[in-house]
């Protein structure tokens, strides 16, 4: 087990290094200049630009920049964001928890709903519930997430639910924690709900298919023959085994969730990593873009590793 974990860790580090290096050279090969936001300012003189380039080491040969980049990252320094004029770690420290809150909520809600839906569909295959919700799931899964988010905006505009932002801007920052948390939760409903709906649509299809795979097994027939009720056969015996592939899917859903979060965050003005990525890319904020790419590919790999571990933990056959 330890060797397996170490191997996964080494593979993961290698892939993070590969993606980061790829991004580093892509960014630096791009014909545009950094500091796009500041360059648009007509008062920016060529001297100022040269000074900035020197300050951030952008006037050095590329290979030297790459070497410095690697050594500073190895010592935990991700540089200073060009646009925010703050250490990248601080900028991400604000944004990432919000994205994790959004993704985590969507993941939990989406999986709960998707597993329940898929299990009921699979237990009554071909029935009206199966056909109705199955059809809706395919439909929802085909909707572009930014469009679904816009529909939600349209639907809930003017309702009691806030449609933009993370917290009410006029809320007193010294308000009691409970009140602030409640305010954030209200802001979370729409973005997390939209993302959860998309997750649930996909999960329910997987869950249904997985249950269909399990039901023809001999031990299911045995349970029935023993006189176990149909409900218990499906929900206690079969569902447990049918959950295995779904657990794996949970870890593999990370890239889709991250991608989805970009659009959901932009549409609902949720100030997380997705919004930050779009802004950083627009402003050519090299250090910030690189850190975001690194962090998200690390998240993807962690997700895949977690999927493996969870699968091994849930399936006794894999422990031997």
């Amino acid at each position, binding site marked *: 087990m330890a060797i397996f974990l170490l191997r996964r860790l080494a593979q993961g580090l290698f892939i993070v290094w590969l993606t980061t290096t790829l991004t580093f050279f892509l960014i630096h090969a791009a014909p545009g200049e950094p500091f796009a936001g500041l360059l648009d300012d007509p008062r920016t003189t060529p001297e100022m630009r040269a000074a900035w380039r020197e300050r951030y080491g952008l006037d050095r040969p590329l290979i030297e920049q790459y070497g410095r980049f690697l050594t500073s990252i190895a010592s935990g320094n991700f540089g200073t964001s060009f646009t925010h004029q703050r250490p990248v770690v601080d900028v991400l420290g604000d944004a990432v928890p919000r994205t994790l809150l959004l993704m985590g909520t969507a993941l939990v809600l989406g999986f709960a709903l998707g597993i329940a839906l898929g299990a009921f569909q699979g237990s009554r295959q071909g029935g009206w519930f199966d056909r109705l919700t199955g059809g809706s799931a395919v439909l929802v899964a085909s909707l572009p997430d930014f469009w679904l988010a816009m529909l939600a905006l349209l639907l809930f505009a003017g309702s009691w639910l806030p449609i933009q932002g993370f917290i009410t801007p006029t809320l007193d920052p010294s308000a009691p924690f409970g009140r602030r948390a409640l305010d954030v939760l209200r802001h979370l409903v729409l973005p997390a709900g939209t993302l959860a709906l998309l997750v649930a649509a*996909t999960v329910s299809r997987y869950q249904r298919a997985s249950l269909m795979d399990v039901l023809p097994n001999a031990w299911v027939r045995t349970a029935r023959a023993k006189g176990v009720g149909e409900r218990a056969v499906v929900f206690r015996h079969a569902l447990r085994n049918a959950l295995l592939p779904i657990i794996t899917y949970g870890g593999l859903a990370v890239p889709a969730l991250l991608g989805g979060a970009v659009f959901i965050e932009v549409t609902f003005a949720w100030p997380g990593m997705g919004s930050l990525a779009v802004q950083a890319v627009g402003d050519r904020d090299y250090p910030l873009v690189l850190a975001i790419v690194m962090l998200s590919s690390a998240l993807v790999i962690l997700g895949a590793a977690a999927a493996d571990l969870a699968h091994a933990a849930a399936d006794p056959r894999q422990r031997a």
Partner: protein
Amino acid sequence: MPNATPGSLVAFADAAPAPLAPWAPGRLLALLRSDPAVSIAGLALLLIAVAALLAPWIAPFDPALTLDVSAGAQPPSATHWLGTDQLSRDLLSRLLYGARISLGISLLAVTVAVIVGTAWGAVAGYAGGWVDTLMMHVVNAGLAIPRILLLLGIVALWGGLSMSSLVLLLGLTSWFGVSRFVRAEVRATRNRDFATAARATGGSPFRVLVRHVLPHALTPMLVAATLGVGQVIVIEAGLSFLGFGVAPPDVSWGTLIRDGRDVLGTAWWMSAFPGLALATTVLAVNVLHDRLRSALGGQQLHDP
């Protein structure tokens, strides 16, 4: 394919693609024809494709023509079936022209992805050993970056992309999944008797691969291609929605949705109809992909 696609979380957990049945066009068509969902999806796609092709002849207005700017965005009416935008341009005409770009880009990009992915997967699967390991590491790295972030980075940094570079870019970031399908198929086929026989009679590796092994990978290529079209349409729309994709004066469905984003409350039709067109197309492609896959004996579980 484990890829972040902006619209569809549908398709990505193919941990180990199951080998599919060999290429059998007749059986395929017969199976597809007997399924009403496929007929409807096929018909819808055909209609959309024909409308896109005929856009210059059937569009009621010039898509760039501003008719009466002072009137602002007009709701759907008898003259403007889908309404107009703030600059009083006819939305139906823009939608039809947008279809050309949206569909054209994704079809071309998927062609690029299938060619690159097939070549990569075929070489990796046929060579085996450390070459295979290394090449698949690259694929895993490609799959580990959320695709939309990677694209955002490249598109925004390289700025002002021409249509052909956009196609190339979308294609070159979409082949990772295809290569895994093809590799799995090539590995399953390369040591079967006919391949060994072809090698024994003096066939060069290239010849054995192209003439004897790859034809068996046509099925996964086709399945991957249908999947890819649905994904790439949404990705292109997503990029354009964020303002980094198709640049004016060209319009795609994504840019149309973006145009309507800030006037959602007052002119819902501006983003609703392009979104509906996008959703219909993706749904139809996904249904086709789903049925194709199950008709060909692939595991349902990997792509619901």
